[in-house]
């Protein structure tokens, strides 16, 4: 009986570990979806209210990492010190970080026409990124869970 319960706990734990390892793709997806919505918010602002960038960086969304990135960017812009560091989530690659730096540094540097063109370009780039992440997510996220479960079952059998 004890062996059975121990085995069951092992299966559940391994499945959860497998799921956690591959859940980064879901975090990435959620983050860049927020970025896409933020980009759309900027475009809508340009067509109507034309609020300043500092005000727009108070944008709220359901991804905590993205909100923190916006706050850190706002702080770096508001601060008189030019080398304030931006926050990047731990799962971001060097390529992702450079993409974010380029994106936020490109905002607010031109008139409305050039700003719209810039945002339209980033619309396409963010959508491309989302497609790649979505592909990886569908390929690997299920695999992680299955591998974890299989590994857990293997240990369960050994225990039994």
């Amino acid at each position: 009986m004890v062996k059975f319960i121990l085995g069951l706990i092992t299966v559940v734990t391994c499945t959860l570990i497998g799921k956690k390892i591959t859940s980064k793709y879901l975090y990435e997806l959620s983050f860049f979806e927020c970025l896409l919505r933020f980009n759309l918010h900027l475009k809508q602002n340009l067509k109507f209210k034309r609020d300043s960038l500092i005000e727009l960086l108070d944008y709220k969304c359901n991804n905590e990492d993205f909100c923190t990135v916006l706050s850190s960017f706002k702080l770096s812009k508001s601060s008189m010190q030019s080398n304030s560091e931006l926050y990047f989530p731990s799962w971001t690659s060097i390529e992702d970080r450079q993409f974010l730096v380029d994106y936020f540094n490109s905002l607010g540097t031109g008139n409305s026409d050039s700003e719209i063109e810039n945002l339209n370009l980033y619309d396409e780039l963010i959508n491309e990124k989302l497609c790649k992440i979505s592909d990886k997510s569908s390929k690997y996220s299920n695999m992680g869970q299955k591998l974890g479960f299989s590994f857990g079952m293997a240990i369960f059998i050994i225990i039994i």
Partner: protein
Amino acid sequence: MLDFLSNRLKTEIFSSFATIYEVRIRADKPITVKGCDGIRVYSKQLNCKIDRRELDQIFMRLCNHSIFSVESSLKQGFITSKYGERVGVCGEVVISDRSVVSIKNFTSLCIRFPNCAYGCSDPLIKTLQNAVSCLVISPPFHGKTTFIRDLGRAYSDNFGLNVLFVDERDELGCNGSFNLGKSSDVIRFANKEFGFYNGIRAYNPDVIITDEIMDATDCKSIEFAKSSGVMVVASAHAKNLENLLKKKDLSSIIKNNTFDIIVLLNKFKIEKIYKERDWLNLF
């Protein structure tokens, strides 16, 4: 105030005079401050300079890192800051299809501080039984904007009138920083044509306050207001009445008695109040 400057520059500037009227920041040249030390108004140069790179950074902070949000005022050569300072921008004008697109390669900024002199229009108000249409004239930097702002407030609070401020550069209201009276409305950043025509239709004002009448379009807007039964308080640059009447567009609306009185200011005080017979004699 001056939240777009570094703490170092702010400290230097605010410690130079008791009251500051104007700051001129020129790339690679000493900063010049004009102010009052309690006795007289004069300018002095500070022992600090900034380079072009710092000037660009100041500009970006001034427009809250969003050039698009100040695009229309930038094309006219100025930006109004969050606290109402009017910042004139000098640099290279970019033109496309004969119209100004933007300004780049900034070389200098001229920052003018809005001043509130509560009650400065009282000497005029005491001579009036009712509100009248009034043109305030003086050379630059003699207090026209401060005077008409206070006059608008007095018309609202003392005479109980609905006062509409057509505030083309947000110098009159300064984004709500100044008391414009209990029954006043403000249209900010709109030109006089829009402000007058739509303001009269939408706000039903008793009097419209506006700053710096310059050209025929401004004069036409004022005539429209007068013909609609709305009083107007405005300002114009002129050394004196004779000088004013040399301006073709302005002299025509004065000849038509659009204004009931013309007030000449000299160093923030009323020098003379002209009535109809004074300018009719000069025509």
